[in-house]
């Protein structure tokens, strides 16, 4: 190794200022260059297909099934956690390892860092979600071909389920990212995310009926249940529930609020 005078570096002039466009490229590279991303996405895909195979095969020979698409997409209940955790890790790992300091050193405008991360995790979540929902549907369709119970794109609500399930995954990624921006620590973020998704739902149903009826429809887990189902009941487990599309808008609102507060805190806090 030499200490010769450093060669002048080649610098590409594209935009007039380092901003979101370049930040997106950097975050894209970061997202794909850690092993956890590839393993999580691979695992998520395999589990979704595997669960589809198991639960859909069980419908073979049945004369009737109420909502077969729920069985086909059962893996999505797992997928929301996987994408949510991916969203958490995308930011919390930077706080945990100190990487955030390197990131902020090259992009001192922190809102741009968070926006770039949101676009990457939201975009990957959406594309993955859509590809996964339609490909899983195809798998279920093949398993049930020639059977009394069928899943078909022509069935009422099925196309809506497939499209919105992908959106649901993307929103879970954004909610995970927002939680991480808020609390920073990986362990705390993941426990908060899972608590909101699971524990709150369990605890809620132990509370008085009036409270349950007031809150139940706002719980992400209940919203997702309607999204993954082609039947659109007005009640879920006896409590009033939003329509799937309204539910998704509520999830989107959660994501926006969490990212907004998280981003504001990121700008204010020292790193």
């Amino acid at each position, binding site marked *: *190794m030499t*200490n*010769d*005078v*450093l*060669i*002048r*570096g*080649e*610098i*590409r*002039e*594209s*935009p*007039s*200022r*380092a901003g979101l466009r*370049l*930040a997106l*490229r*950097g*975050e*894209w*590279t*970061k997202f794909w*260059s*850690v*092993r*956890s991303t590839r393993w999580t996405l691979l695992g998520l895909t395999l589990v979704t297909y595997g669960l589809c195979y198991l639960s859909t095969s069980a419908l073979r020979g049945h004369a009737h099934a109420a909502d077969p698409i729920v069985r086909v997409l059962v893996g999505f209940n797992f997928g929301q956690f996987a994408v949510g955790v991916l969203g958490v890790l995308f930011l919390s*790992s*930077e706080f945990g*390892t*100190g*990487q*955030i*300091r*390197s*990131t*902020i*050193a*090259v*992009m*001192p*405008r922190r809102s741009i860092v968070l926006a770039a991360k949101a676009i990457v995790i939201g975009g990957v979540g959406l594309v993955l979600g859509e590809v996964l929902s339609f490909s899983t549907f195809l798998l279920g369709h093949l398993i049930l071909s020639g059977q009394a119970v069928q899943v078909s794109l022509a069935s009422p609500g099925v196309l809506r389920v497939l499209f919105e399930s992908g959106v649901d995954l993307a929103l879970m990624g954004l909610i995970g990212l927002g939680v991480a921006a808020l609390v920073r620590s990986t362990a705390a973020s993941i426990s908060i995310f899972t608590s909101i998704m699971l524990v709150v739902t369990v605890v809620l149903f132990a509370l008085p009926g009036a409270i349950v009826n007031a809150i139940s429809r706002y719980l992400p887990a209940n919203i997702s249940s309607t999204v993954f189902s082609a039947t659109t009941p007005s009640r879920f487990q006896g409590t009033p529930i939003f329509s799937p599309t309204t539910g998704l808008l509520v999830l989107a609102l959660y994501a926006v609020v969490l990212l907004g507060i998280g981003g504001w805190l990121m700008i*204010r806090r*020292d*790193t």
Partner: protein
Amino acid sequence: MIMGLNHPDAGSVTISGKKYHDLRWPMREVGALLEARAIHPGRSAYSHLWSLAQYGGIAKSRVEEVIDHVGLTSVANRRVGKFSLGMGQRLGIAAALLGDPAVVLLDEPVNGLDTEGIRWTRRLCRDLAAEGRTVFLSSHLMAEMALTADQLVVVGKGRLIAELPVDDFVACSSKRSFKVRAANLDLLIPALEDAGALTIREANSSLTVTNVSAETIGELALEQQNALYELTDLCSLEDAFMELTEGVVEYRAASR
């Protein structure tokens, strides 16, 4: 604070007249080696640098260039988590140089490095400065600073204590003292004392002389045809630093 990582309670820092936050191309103006490691251990050195380069619109060829420059080419695709302290430090320096910045900030760059690494870093700093860059080093290692730095800024308890060239810093210390060995100390001592020096005879037949300049000692010895075996400046940067910061040092060991 310079990089905008931490917010100051009061005041502001500007680089070329602008806040770091407002620079159009932060990476191309300032490169920083942050203390310890600020790197995700699961990423390869190459991916780490490439992602940062993309943020600054810097070409891939430049990433290879800096990896080569810091001597990490053979391990560029290894995960950073497996790197030794020295390799991590080199990677940090590579990141600082990515944007070919005019200002380089290095926070404790030699901490935990082996001798070879320390020498390499020292030479790198001198070379970067020779290219016309401003190299801003922070360190607690006085001996290291004496070898590397030109200009010294001393800060204690959040206040600026001194800002001046290293040589002046040492020279202005009042306790300038020398170790002297000569053919005939008995002859030299009275002459030195006549010149106003304070002398202390040490057990190892050397003399500690204060209150006169090295020139005076040498000239007196020459007049006497008294061969000087040794004339060593005992005042180090460290001593000068200690004298200057006396009473300002935050956590000092109590002396008994």
